[in-house]
Every structure is written in structure tokens, then in C-alpha cells.
């Protein structure tokens, strides 16, 4: 038997940013997870064991992530780490977990390091930014007849992944980036970046940006009369973009996997789910709530499949033949195997029209 699995209870842990720069997301992931945990526990738990979810705050700081991981792993004896947010934070925390044979299950980050290089304790669900852009860029650029493709990215691992994806995508088209420029996390002024791209006559811009920076770059461009096609990654796929940025954001494309659960959504199950969420937490759900919800949902699937003798080994064994079907939010089918630690690398395109995200393409898989 593995640590964290008791007669009546399975203890799982998660680390979120609850007070740092992306506290908004961290909180939503946590609420999404809590929603699913409560549902499962009300339905009698996993093979009779209730789920106990412990959430620690990392403030998006790798050092605090390590401290939190040490606490969860060594003190609270969690069975698995689920939905840990942030690339650097995961990289920092994983050694602590692996030393104690604790699975890193479905971290909320689309970095390739979450499944590559291979480790038996790593599982990831998110199509990597790299693959998202690599796949979407050539198609969209062709549709738009773009000549000069540029990129602006945050100068951290996340932004670089987007950039690498863009470069790989262009390479497959036999083209190159006409201009690339970066900014530091937390920047608020993008005038010189936009001026640079404008000066290079870009007509297509790949955005390795998150929320405020996406809005900032597009806003500055609109202001200075620079209007290329913008393509962001799933990091920019949040309702905040159009809520904060207003009409100026219309026309922005982003790659994504699960849909944002609008309360007035056409699809009935999503509407039902969103209302349930809103009743529970008195907040509108977002795509991050869905991530959290899905992470737990998948965990429960695997744990249930692993049977009453739940242990790390039986869990991995269950995951070896795991297929997670598309859900109500429109995610792609996820498949895992003994050497397959990423569920799916497919993603699709959405665009903001009339102040809302609309799905505009089918799932695409990188070639």
C-alpha cells in the first residue's frame, strides 16, 4: 500500500498560486477541483474511500512550491499531486515527489517537461503550447495569406515554448519569423515592442502572452493603427481577455482544448454545470475551473479503475490502458499507455467575435 491511502480516505495534494501573479487562475482551479471532490464524496467516494484534497499556496514561487511539496509529501503523506499549477513550480517540486514515489498527476501547465523526458510518475493532459502553435500557425497563416509573421513573447519558459512552436510551424512552411520581440513578466508598456513589429511590417503576430499582456499588446497595436492577425495560445484563451479588453479584442485567435463555460452557453450540460458551480461558489466559472474539475475527474477515473487495492503501482497500471473520452466541455479524447504520458496533443482554434470566444475549427493534431 502506498502513502496517502487509508481505509476510508485517499489524501491528495495540490499546489496553487493563491496569492501571486496568477492567483485568479489558481483559485479557480482549486474551486473546480473542490467541486468535483465534493461530488465524488457525496456519491460515496472512490471504491468506498473519500477523497481528501489538501491545497497549498506557492504564490507562483518555485521555492515555496518546493516547501509546499515537501510538506504535502513528507508531512501530510499525500498519495498523488494533482493539478499543480506553473511550469517552474512543477519542475521544482517533482524531484521531491518522485523521491517518495508520488505521482505528478495532470499539472495545470502545457509545458513539454510535464511528460517529456519520460518518467513513470508523470502524467499530463494539456496539449503543449509548442504543439498548439506549431499546428495552428501554418493553417491560419495560409488562410489569412500572411506574408510577414512575427512573434512577441514573455521572456520565460512559457513564452519561449510558444516562440519555439511558432518557429517550428514556420519551418514546416519553409518560412521564418520576420521579427521577434519579448517583454518581461509583469510588463505594462508594450510601445517599443509594437513599434518594432510595426516597423517590420508584420501582418501576422503570434502572441506568447497571457492576459494583461495580450490585451496590452493588442490595445497598443490598435491605438497605433497596426492591425495584423493575432494568434495566441491556450494561455490567452480566457474570458478575461474580452471582458477586460473590450471590443478592441475582437478578431483575436487562440488555440484551446476545453471551452470556456459561459453561463448563457448554448450547450445545455455546460449551462447546467456552470450554474452548479455558480451556486456553490458564487462566482462565474472559467476555463480554469474546468481544468480543475477535469483533473479530479480523471484522477477519480483512474483510481476507481485501479480498484480497492489502490497503490501507486496499481494506479499506474490502470493508467496504462486509460482512455478518457471527450467531455461536455469539448476536450479531445485522451489516451495513455506505458510509454504514453500525454493524453492528447490535439487542440483547436477559437476566435473572439462580438465579445465572446467562438470555436472556429476542428481538433488538429501536429504532423
Amino acid at each position, binding site marked *: 500500500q502506498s502513502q496517502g491511502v487509508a481505509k476510508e480516505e485517499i489524501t491528495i495534494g495540490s499546489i496553487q498560486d493563491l496569492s501571486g*501573479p496568477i492567483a485568479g487562475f489558481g483559485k479557480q482551479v482549486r474551486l473546480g477541483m473542490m467541486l468535483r471532490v465534493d461530488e465524488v464524496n457525496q456519491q460515496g467516494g472512490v471504491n468506498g474511500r473519500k477523497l481528501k484534497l489538501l491545497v497549498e499556496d506557492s504564490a507562483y514561487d518555485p521555492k515555496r512550491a518546493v516547501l509546499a511539496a515537501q510538506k504535502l509529501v513528507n508531512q501530510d503523506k499525500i498519495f498523488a499531486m494533482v493539478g499543480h499549477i506553473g511550469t517552474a513550480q512543477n519542475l521544482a517540486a517533482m524531484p521531491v515527489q518522485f523521491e517518495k514515489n508520488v505521482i505528478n498527476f495532470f499539472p495545470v501547465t502545457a509545458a513539454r517537461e510535464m511528460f517529456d523526458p519520460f518518467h513513470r510518475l508523470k502524467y499530463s493532459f494539456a496539449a503543449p503550447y509548442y504543439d498548439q502553435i506549431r499546428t495552428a500557425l501554418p493553417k491560419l497563416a495560409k488562410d489569412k495569406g500572411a506574408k510577414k509573421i512575427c512573434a512577441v513573447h514573455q*521572456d520565460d519558459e512559457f513564452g519561449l515554448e510558444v516562440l519555439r512552436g511558432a518557429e517550428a510551424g514556420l519551418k514546416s512552411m519553409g518560412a521564418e519569423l520576420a521579427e521577434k520581440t519579448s517583454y518581461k513578466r509583469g510588463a505594462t508598456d508594450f*510601445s*517599443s515592442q509594437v513599434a518594432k513589429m510595426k*516597423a517590420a511590417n508584420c501582418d501576422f503576430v503570434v502572441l506568447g502572452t497571457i492576459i*494583461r499582456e495580450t490585451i496590452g499588446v493588442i490595445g497598443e497595436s490598435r491605438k497605433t493603427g497596426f492591425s495584423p492577425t493575432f494568434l495566441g495560445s491556450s494561455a490567452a484563451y480566457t474570458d478575461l481577455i474580452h471582458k477586460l479588453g473590450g471590443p478592441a479584442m475582437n478578431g483575436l485567435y487562440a488555440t484551446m482544448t476545453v471551452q470556456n463555460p459561459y453561463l448563457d452557453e448554448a450547450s445545455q450540460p455546460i449551462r447546467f454545470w456552470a450554474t452548479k458551480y455558480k451556486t456553490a461558489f*458564487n462566482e462565474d466559472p472559467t476555463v480554469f475551473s474546468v481544468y480543475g474539475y477535469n483533473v479530479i475527474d480523471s484522477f477519480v477515473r483512474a483510481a476507481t479503475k485501479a480498484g480497492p487495492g489502490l497503490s501507486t503501482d496499481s494506479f499506474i497500471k490502470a493508467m496504462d490502458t486509460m482512455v478518457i473520452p471527450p467531455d461536455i466541455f469539448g476536450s479531445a479524447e485522451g489516451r495513455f499507455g506505458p510509454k504514453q504520458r500525454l493524453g492528447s496533443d490535439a487542440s483547436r482554434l477559437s476566435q473572439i467575435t462580438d465579445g465572446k470566444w467562438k470555436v472556429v475549427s476542428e481538433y488538429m493534431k501536429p504532423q
Partner: protein
Amino acid sequence: MQVLQLLISGVAQGCIYGLIALGFVLIYKATETVSFAQGDLMMVGAFIALGVMSMLGLPFWVAVPAAIAGMAVIGFGAERLVIRPILGQPAFAIVMVTIGIGYVARGLITMIPAIGTETHALEVPYKNITLNAGGLVLAAEQLVVIAVTALLCAALYLGFRYTRVGVAMQAASQNQLAAYYMGIPVKRLNSMVWALAAAVAAIAGLLLAPITFVHANMGLVGLKAFPAAVVGGFGSLPGAIVGGLVIGCVESFAGFYLPEGFKDVAAYVVVLLMLVLKPNGLFGERLRKKV
């Protein structure tokens, strides 16, 4: 043309730095401490305006005075509560307290359910208005920042230079003991200073909100305002603005002409160069102890 446009965006950004730096200098002149809470007070001010507008549904023109007055009250209260008891301790103690105030402000705001962790947009009447002049583009938001900064700077400068209370504030910072001996109500002035600084922070928050959005971490721009204040000379109000402009323009040009990464450290490189060449900044006083 390109150069001019870069210059304009540099100036606009510089004014933002200058505006925050103004708050630092104000406090420094009057208490000889550096307030690390200035950026966070600015954030709180923006949140107050946001609350007034979105929760009470009042117009922008009501939210502005409300935020300023609200922040003045908060500044006053903070002084009473946590700064007055250590009035007279070494400046360093007060610096630490301001760091504490910053943490508390950020913590409290983030704790507001459903609001604190989100990013919000403040609806200002002049949003999305741009002026085009022969190919150059100027946003109304930036023009407002420039105008208000200039006015505020002039008002504060005159106040410190020529009013009795202004001089007394400086006196109290240079020698508190002697200030007491002169009958200067050091404590009351101190409350006033912090109230004023918080009000200035609120103004900065209001002006910044349309540009950077309102969120719990918006106060971090304050870190760029430190170099601005130092380049200008920490004790000089006009210096704060000039310093801000220098930093803003350097950043703007570095971002365009220099390789990646230079834009973000340009401010700090400038400040180090400045400290080596002219340790007391462009307008700083020459400080030398006579023995």
C-alpha cells in the same frame, strides 16, 4: 517619425513612473523614509474607484474624489495606527513598516471574495480616444497622465518651498527633536504627510488603471519608480518627474534599438550609471556633513 513616436511613448510611460516617484519623494522630503507601500496604496486607490463605480454604480467623476478622499483617510489611519507609535525610530524601522503595510494591503485586497484575485478594467470616460497628429498617435489616457503629473508636481513643489507647513515638514524630517522644540506639531504633520501621500497614490492609481488594469499586483510598477526618483535626486520633486522621463525614454529606445532584455534592465542600468557619475541624482542636494 519613428524616433518621435518612440519619444512620445517614452514620455507617456515616463510620466507614470514620475507620478509614482512623486509619492516617494513627497514622503522622503517630509519624513526621510522611503515608503515601499506607495505602489500598493496606489492599487488600493484604484480598487476603491472600481468599487465606487461598479458596485455603487456611480460615475467616474464621483469615483475620482471618492478614491482620493478614501485613500487620504486610509493614509491618515495607517499613520495613526502603525507609524505614529514608532515615530522617531530610525528611518529603517519605518521602511520596514511600509513594507508590512504593502503586504497587508495586497493581502486584504486579494482576500475580497471574487474580486481580489481578478483583473478588472476601470471605465474611464476618455478611454480609447486617440489623437492623431501627422502620423503620430497620442492616447488621451497618456495625455491625462502627463497633464496631471505636471500639475501635481508644481503644486507639491510650491507647497514645500513656500508654505509654512511645507517647510515645517522638511524641518521635522531633518531634526525631529528641534522641530518639537520649535512647537511644530510633528505628529499632526506626519499624519498629514501620509494622508497626502496616500491621496497622491490614489491619483496615480486612477491614472494608471486604464493603462495597466486594476489588479492586486498592479503596485509592482512602483519598483521602476525607484530608479526614477534616484535619477532625479531623491529629495527633489521636479527631479522625480525628470527622472521618470529619463527612465521612460531610455526604456522606450532601448526596447526598440537594443537586443532583447535590455528594455527591462535599462532603468536599473541607468540608475547605476547615475549613482556612479552623480551620486545624488540630477537635482539632488549636495550632502556633506560639516564637522
